[in-house]
């Protein structure tokens, strides 16, 4: 039946084992793509006619920013699924996203600041996209803080899920901020599917690092998910077999 795979995803032991098997399939391609992409971005791609070599920060800044939005969206969607269908696994997914999302957001802000310093002449500007990206960081931190403040895991899951879902409004705000306001940021040059305005030698390494970061998120999510699933299954019998034979390696 087409739905059995979905039902199986609600089963913690199944997810625990599946995540273990899937992790290398995410981790190694991620490593490859990131290394290749960064090499392409640093060495192969030609210098920009306006920004010279300085634009190469793009290859870590843009994937970080993409990931910050993608991770929050994943977190909010998983939280919503957990709330609506009362799936422990969905809540575990949401919990696994938070630290990583905060990291990507932090990286996006810092690399953006380091890029802006020589280009715009300032380390920080209160322009809409930067400001709301900073708000996103506060949202991740607030989510983690709320989780930590509630002792009961089930309640922490569900209360923080409401917070995650309510906060999703910021994601479209960040994305469309460059269109809605006059911003220092440039408008979309990659997401225009018709004709991206970057030459392929610049674009391809960016897509590689972008995909690489996504797979990296996947791999790390799977590792953390296993930890979260384990910690939610206090007395379940499947844990015995699962951890007994396991050597102490991820």
């Amino acid at each position, binding site marked *: 039946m087409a739905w059995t795979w979905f039902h199986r995803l609600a089963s913690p032991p199944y997810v625990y084992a599946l995540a273990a098997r899937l992790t290398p399939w995410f981790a190694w391609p991620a490593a490859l793509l990131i290394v290749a992409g*960064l090499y392409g971005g*640093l060495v192969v791609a030609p210098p920009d006619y306006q920004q*010279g070599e300085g634009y190469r920060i793009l290859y870590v800044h843009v994937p970080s920013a993409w990931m910050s939005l993608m991770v929050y969206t994943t977190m909010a969607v998983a939280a919503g699924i957990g709330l609506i269908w009362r799936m422990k696994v969905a809540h575990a997914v949401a919990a696994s996203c938070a630290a990583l999302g905060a990291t990507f957001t932090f*990286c996006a802000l810092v690399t953006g600041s380091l890029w802006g310093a020589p280009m715009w002449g300032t380390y920080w500007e209160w322009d809409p996209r930067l400001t709301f990206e900073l708000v996103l960081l506060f949202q991740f931190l607030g989510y983690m803080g709320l989780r930590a403040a509630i002792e009961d895991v089930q309640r922490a899951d569900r209360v923080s899920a409401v917070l995650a879902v309510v906060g999703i409004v910021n994601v479209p705000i960040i994305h469309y901020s460059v269109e809605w306001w006059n911003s220092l940021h440039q408008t979309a040059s990659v997401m225009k599917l018709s004709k991206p305005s970057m030459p392929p030698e610049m674009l391809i390494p960016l897509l590689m690092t972008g995909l690489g970061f996504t797979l990296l998120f996947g791999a*790390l999510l799977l590792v953390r998910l296993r930890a979260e699933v384990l910690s939610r299954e*206090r007395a379940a019998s499947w844990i015995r077999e699962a951890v007994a034979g396991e050597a102490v390696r*991820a």
Partner: protein
Amino acid sequence: MMEFLEMGGYARYVWSSYAIVLVAIVLNIVWARRALKRAQAEARRRVTMRDAA
């Protein structure tokens, strides 16, 4: 090679950006694996305690 490291004068911006992101990635890998190991150790401990009870 020197030109590569110089990055057209933008060296400290480009290299510190890359360094920060790579450190952040490595830290997250370490933290994730540590979280899993801790959860597994905790689960093992609970199983042992239940067996002993």
